[in-house]
């Protein structure tokens, strides 16, 4: 946990999620291989190695790892929404085109639809959010993740904004 926090301070572009380092049950050798990015050998059909967050104009983020994209909403979005009290998420197995509406997050005051950042199939949903929707506010880049999906069109990831571009985008909204 502490190590993860240190890494987060070092670089804003580092993915705050380093699940393999923190899960005790994983194969140690696989963990070491993935940690050393750049020398990694992958057997996945996905050629995208990036574990940095990419953002959409609708304020979703996606983090790609091992051919799977984890999706959530940005800090800017959860702050604007307020306390999340309800999460409407899709079914596992549902196929999504980029920009398809896949669910909604609701605060007391408002409902906000969620739009898929990529084309792919839903492989997991964050079931913790049913009992604890506030995780989206507390930890939007980690524990508050929404869905995981396959990545049918890796080139779509390249079309999304990186952290710097997204920060600029938010600034332009606030003007």
């Amino acid at each position, binding site marked *: 946990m502490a190590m993860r926090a240190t890494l987060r301070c070092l670089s804003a572009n580092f993915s705050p999620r380093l699940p393999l380092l923190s899960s005790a049950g994983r194969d140690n050798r696989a963990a070491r291989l993935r940690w050393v990015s750049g020398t990694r050998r992958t057997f996945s059909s996905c050629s995208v190695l990036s574990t940095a967050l990419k953002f959409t104009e609708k304020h*979703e983020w996606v983090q790609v790892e091992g051919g799977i994209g984890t999706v959530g909403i940005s800090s800017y979005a959860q702050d*604007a929404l*307020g306390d999340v*009290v*309800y999460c409407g998420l899709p079914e596992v197995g549902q196929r999504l085109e980029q920009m398809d509406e896949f669910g*909604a997050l609701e605060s*007391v*005051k*408002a409902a906000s639809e*969620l739009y898929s950042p990529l084309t792919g199939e839903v492989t997991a949903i964050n079931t913790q959010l049913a009992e604890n929707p506030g995780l989206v506010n507390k930890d939007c880049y980690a524990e508050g993740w929404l869905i995981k999906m396959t990545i049918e069109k890796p080139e779509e990831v390249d079309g999304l904004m990186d952290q710097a571009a997204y920060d600029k985008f938010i600034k332009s909204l606030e003007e």
Partner: protein
Amino acid sequence: MQITLSVLHLIATVALKKTPLFDFHKAHDGKMVNFAGWSLPVQYKDSHIVSHMHTREHCSIFDVSHMLQTKVHGKDRVKFMESLVVADIAELKSNQGTLSLFTNEKGGIIDDLIVTKTDQGYLYVVSNAGCAEKDSVHMKVRLAEFKAAGLDVDLEFLDEALLAVQGPSMFRVLQEGLKDNLNKLTFMTSTVATVFGVPDCRITRCGYTGEDGVEISVSRLRAVELIEKLLANSEVKLAGLAARDSLRLEAGLCLYGNDIDETTTPVEATLVWTIGKRRRKDKDFPGAEIIVPQIKAKTFRKRVGLVSTGPPVRQHTPILSPDGKVIGEVTSGCPSPCLKKNVAMGYVDSEFAKNGTEIQVEVRKKAVGAVVSRMPFVPTNYYMG
């Protein structure tokens, strides 16, 4: 995600009206939004839910200075006001007020308001900011008719600030600033007093939250002074429009423009109780010929409360019968911070209006179960003495 926040957007123009507390709100980190042409705080530093719960458990102050405050003067003021609203004003006790409705010739509701029969020679009326233009024109037209008939009435539109102080701690907090015992001021009664050294404040024991509370009408020159004295008590926090809306919905109170409007009659809106006994007999208010027969004959649709078993329901959500037929529409709804359930108000075909009736609501193209429920959703705590 699409941030489709209906209330939260930044002020773009300087044309918005400001209450005497505008600078005060900004200084206290109020997030200002446009509400009915006024710049008002939707919330402060606390989250919506924290602010909502603080009101129910302690005490919150809301700046409601945007609302229209009117004094009706003159010998014929009661007759004047009764010509516009459905209430028995003549029968009100001295310094007693009541919720009432301006109605139109079609039996619809022009606005809801509180009218108080003061012992100071005037009626004190508070009505909605969103209807201020409409209401003042409506009253002025009737005024001209009365004057033309030689009757004695005058209107005075106030520019006082109005502070709503709501919650169980209100009593403790306010008593510290009053000479007289607040125990004497029961729900829906009004008085004038010096509050924390500020003279000529009209205090009415009423509100829009369901909690024990007061609304204080105070000179705009001393509004900041008064709110600072109240805020000095650690029980008190500032609250904005967001909490105001979720509190009133839990209390089953209508929002004009959503739950009642010119197309809803008082009977459809389940507000028959606002129509005075004598007024029903005399049928001497606008739209009486349409409204009074509805009391016996019933109406095609009725305003009801409902609780969704699934996602939150909001305004315009279709209401369906168990076999999927459209039977109505939600007019307001939100997740209830107190109950942690999704509550709403809407109109349904009368045959489905009984409490406990199982219905459905359509959220994002899926039918979800719901139940017609009594209101208020959260028990009220009005101080009856």
